[in-house]
């Protein structure tokens, strides 16, 4: 029993991490239908930026704030220098651009930050909480709480503010949106900023668990993308649940089947789910939403 609980804790921790990354994907996708593969790099910039600022003696909260701002600037740069000039290109060309950007950002980060790994101190200490014989890291709670807060803020933004409605309108039909007076470029630019802030914040939250390095974004983006697809691209709650499913599948297959097949089991499960629900578990009505 305690074994199962331990696997569950582990799966939830890892799953929430994937979910947090998946969340970043949803925002840009909602506004522009672009899957931004540089999302993992936003996570990395948040974590590594904080590590760097702390190493200069900046206090933790301020360091985190600086890192988030820096990441937002990089994201604006990505949009204005790479995406906007190519805005008339097909969506898949824009996706390729984001892949290129992610390689560029990662390469520059390797030179700028160096290639070694760093650990951020956990927010609430590192003494595990023992529940039913299973150990839970306090930082996991911080990640869960932080990500849930982000999801609810995002839902509120999307459903109850005029900015959110403008994002949804832009997503549904950019031409019609601009005819009713929505500045489509500004909305998409905003979505890059929001998405990078989410990425950077999740990077800061997960660095005490996952360790920070210049190339941490690659694997996280891959798993986060899988989570976003599973949950239904564009749905914040779906992203979170998709992440949890991937994380739990990994933890339980490592625990009960074999750690050799952990990644394979998770991905096979995703493929099976997508056979049944091609739009993801919660993605059925993405485009028809008016």
């Amino acid at each position, binding site marked *: 029993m305690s074994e199962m609980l331990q696997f569950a804790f582990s799966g939830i921790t890892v799953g929430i*991490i994937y979910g947090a990354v998946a969340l970043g994907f949803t925002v840009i996708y909602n506004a522009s239908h672009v899957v931004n593969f540089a999302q993992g790099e936003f996570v990395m910039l948040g974590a590594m930026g904080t590590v760097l600022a702390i190493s200069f003696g900046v206090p933790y909260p301020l360091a985190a704030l600086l890192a988030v701002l820096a990441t937002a600037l990089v994201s604006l740069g990505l949009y204005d220098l790479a995406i906007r000039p190519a805005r008339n290109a097909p969506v898949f060309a824009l996706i390729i651009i984001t892949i290129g950007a992610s390689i560029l950002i990662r390469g520059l980060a390797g030179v700028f930050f160096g290639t070694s*790994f760093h*650990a951020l101190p956990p927010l609430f200490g*590192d003494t*595990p909480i023992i529940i039913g014989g*299973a*150990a839970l890291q306090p930082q996991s709670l911080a990640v869960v709480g932080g990500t849930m807060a982000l999801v609810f803020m995002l839902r509120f933004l999307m459903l109850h503010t005029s900015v959110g409605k403008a994002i949804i309108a832009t997503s549904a039909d950019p031409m019609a949106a601009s005819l009713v007076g929505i500045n489509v470029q500004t909305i998409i630019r905003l979505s890059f900023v929001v998405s990078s802030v989410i990425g950077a914040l999740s990077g800061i939250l997960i660095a005490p668990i996952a360790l920070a*390095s210049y190339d941490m974004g690659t694997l996280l983006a891959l798993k986060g993308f899988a989570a976003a697809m599973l949950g239904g691209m564009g749905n914040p709650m779906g992203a979170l649940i998709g992440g949890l499913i991937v994380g739990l599948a990994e933890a339980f297959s490592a625990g009960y089947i074999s*750690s*050799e097949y952990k990644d394979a089991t998770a991905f096979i499960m995703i493929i099976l789910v997508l056979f049944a629900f091609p739009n993801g578990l919660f993605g059925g009505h993405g485009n028809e939403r008016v």
Partner: protein
Amino acid sequence: MKRIAVAAAAMLLGAFAVSPSQAQEPIRIGAIVSKTGPAAFLGEPEELTLRHYTEKLNAEGGLLGRPVELVLYDDASDPNTGRTLATRLVEDDGIVAAIATSTTGGTLALAPVFENAEIPVVSLAAGIGIVEPVRPYVFKTPHTDRMVCAKVISDMKSRGFKGIALITGTDGVGKSMRQECSDAAAAQSIEVLADESFNPKDVDMTPQLTKIKNTEGVEAVFIGGFGQSLSVVTRNYRQLGITIPQYQNHGAASKSFIELSGKASEGVLVPGPLLLIAGQLSDDNPLKKVATEYSAAYTELTGQEVSTFGGYAYDALLLIADAIRRANSDDPAAIRDALEATKDLPGVTGMFNMSASDHLGIDQNSLYMVEIKDGDWELIDK
């Protein structure tokens, strides 16, 4: 094309910078290290060491009266890239010997390139597959995983452990460690009761460790692999409150392991090369002087604590320089013959004695069991 031009320009500049007055053609030594990617914390100290000691070699007059030029590339911990770079070294760069690369998987991928070109290469990776069976042109400097396992298992035996667990990475070194340590345990009639693995990029190894924790009769755990994943295992180990002794492999023998693992690293046992604890050795040890000198030079150069990985690179360059001097030639075949004939050469990893059947040349005696105490290494078997 542009890349080749840039590389060529860099080479020319390098040659002039090194030897403004020497008109002679430099002796080119190739190097590939994993400066980026998961093995970065091996590659960084290796590169720093190679660059520093090449400079030093030139300041002392070079080799055979000619300057030495280091042609160094980063394989990003990727065996495919490493193989491409090896081909470039062999075909375009005109090297006479090479040092490559940081990882076992990478070395195995690029070794055939040097074999075919008949240019000697010294690897910085642990895997025993690199030198067994012996390939004429392939040498290496770190202790093999077999020696490390023999050391660890005999330490477990001496403490009376009968049942142990293994948790190893799915990368080259992890797999090789798993095999060697299972064999060593079987030979000492210690039973492997749990055998788990992890992906080196994973952020959480709790499920695997939970299984080990709940396996009856496990008295000690051995962790095999490299890079930051070793720290993740050690951190999770403490978070789960596992209290039985924890043995790491020599991939954890660096200060960055202690820094990344924090308090979780206290009490971890590591089979380490003598470089870690050179200062704690007795003065009549013939290797103490070389090791303490390198250690001090590295700290002065980088402001960081010495890492055993840099030590492997130091030894590789030392072996090649020594072989070129003895061969009195820059012919790759002659250098190979001289490498194989290396006798009583004190390096920072051990005393090197190569032969036609031994392309490593050091033995288990230069490995020490070390315990991490108060964030530092403490020698436990003198």
